[in-house]
């Protein structure tokens, strides 16, 4: 699929929910999230289980907001950053919703939106699909980096995995914000192996997807109110705009990066910005979608970015592969 899929009927985003930890709550978007836990533990005794509880929390919030029971949801696309997607398994198994476990690193949220939209479009008997992704700073540190209490410094290009989760409920209803086009990401290997500069590893994938999208649709970025990337951070965002400029494409001020919105860059030292598949999910659910619902933005390209890698892969010198799936969101009506 190197060309975008234009959906014959928009897939409606019927409900949304988000939850974050303490540092994210103290960021500029803090009050917008549906739920936060200052301790980051979400009532669990380990960090991995805490991320599961975070997923359970957003799922419960989502069902409450939609006024539905878990039986009304036909499919669940969920993912996180833990090995074997354990957070999604621990947190969401109790709901009994037929489940697809996804791993797209930090791009999982939009990967889920793409698959959910395809499922709703392709079949007649699937009515509602939930997409849930989470990430937890402590669980990610333990899995990908070093013990939490280990003392070390990070280079300024490093990113900070957000403790956050977001959930969407997609259906075939009318009105509101809908997904109208999809473009799957290609795995782009730019040869980088530095895990403390993931923005640079993801930026070529983001550029690849955007160039393919605008080439195929012959649209102009000026036709969009915002082009939202997942978690390129300051480093990756800068590289993306330089890569696109070299191909004659300029996004200008309509480029927004969720990773640069989550923390207060003047007060909180998050280096190059936030990352994690909960980052784009929570920022989209708590900030981007409400702005669209209020009519402040009508056409948005949402593109999450993922750095596909593992600790042993890094140690074996395998390059970090970037991926960037894209969904077009539009306010329907008028």
């Amino acid at each position, binding site marked *: 699929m190197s060309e975008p899929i234009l959906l014959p009927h928009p897939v409606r985003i019927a409900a949304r929910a988000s939850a974050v*930890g*303490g*540092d994210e709550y103290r960021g500029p978007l803090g009050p917008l999230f549906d739920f936060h836990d200052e*301790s*980051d*533990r979400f009532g669990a005794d380990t*960090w991995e289980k805490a991320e599961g509880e975070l997923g359970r929390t957003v799922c419960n919030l989502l069902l409450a907001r939609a006024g539905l029971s878990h039986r009304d949801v036909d499919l669940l696309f969920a993912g996180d950053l833990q090995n074997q997607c354990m957070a999604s398994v621990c947190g969401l198994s109790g709901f009994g919703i037929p489940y697809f476990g996804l791993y797209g690193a930090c791009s999982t949220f939009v990967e889920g939106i793409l698959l959910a939209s395809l499922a709703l479009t392709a079949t007649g008997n699937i009515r509602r699909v939930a997409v849930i992704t989470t990430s937890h*700073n*402590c669980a990610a*540190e333990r899995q990908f980096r070093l*013990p*939490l*209490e280990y003392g*070390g*410094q990070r*280079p300024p290009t490093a990113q*900070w995995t957000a*403790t956050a989760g977001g959930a969407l409920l997609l259906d075939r209803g009318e009105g509101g914000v809908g997904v109208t086009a999809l473009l799957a990401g290609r795995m782009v290997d730019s040869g980088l192996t*530095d895990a403390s500069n993931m923005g640079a590893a993801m930026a070529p994938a983001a550029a690849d997807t955007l160039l393919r999208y605008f080439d195929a649709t012959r649209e102009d970025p000026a036709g969009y109110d915002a082009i939202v990337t997942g978690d390129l951070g300051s480093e990756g965002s800068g590289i993306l705009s330089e890569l696109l400029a070299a191909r004659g494409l300029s996004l200008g001020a309509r480029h927004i990066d969720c990773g640069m919105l989550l*923390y207060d*860059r*003047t*007060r*909180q*030292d*998050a280096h190059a910005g936030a990352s994690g598949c909960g980052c784009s999910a929570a920022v989209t659910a708590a900030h981007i979608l409400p702005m669209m619902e209020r009519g402040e933005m009508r056409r948005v390209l949402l593109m999450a970015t993922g750095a596909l890698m593992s600790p042993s892969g890094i140690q074996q010198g395998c390059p970090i592969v970037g991926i960037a799936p894209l969904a077009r969101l539009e306010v329907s009506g008028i």
Partner: protein
Amino acid sequence: MSFLSAGGGAPFPVLPARIRKVVSSLTLFYSCLAAFVTGGLLCVVAQLLIDLTRLTPARILVLYVCTGVFLGAVGLYEPLYRFAGCGVSVPLIGFGGTIARGVREAIHTQGLFGALTGGLTAAAAGTTAALVFGYLAAVFFRSGPKRLGKKR
């Protein structure tokens, strides 16, 4: 008053009490200054290696320990220790220096077998302390959430 010299020599034992007091506090001051400056400089070298060559901290620690063994082997560690005291023994170079000295002394008493026993015997206090306190810390504490630093 030998406790006041950095490496444990015995300075000026024959001087009168009052002068001895002045001299010994000067000696303490000097030994502390030497430890501060030497230790600080060793840390700066490591910081430069981290920031400029992207050597990971684990590699730096290995480099420092092996450097310590090497300095001990070529006979430079002891003079350095007499000069800077804890300025070289507290950084991980000291760990290596201790291993080298332990091996050398064990070979004098046990022959070739000492090459196997000397190093860890000399480093036993530090290693065992780290293991025991590590286990106790695991019993009494659990890891807290990592927090974003304040922007300085």
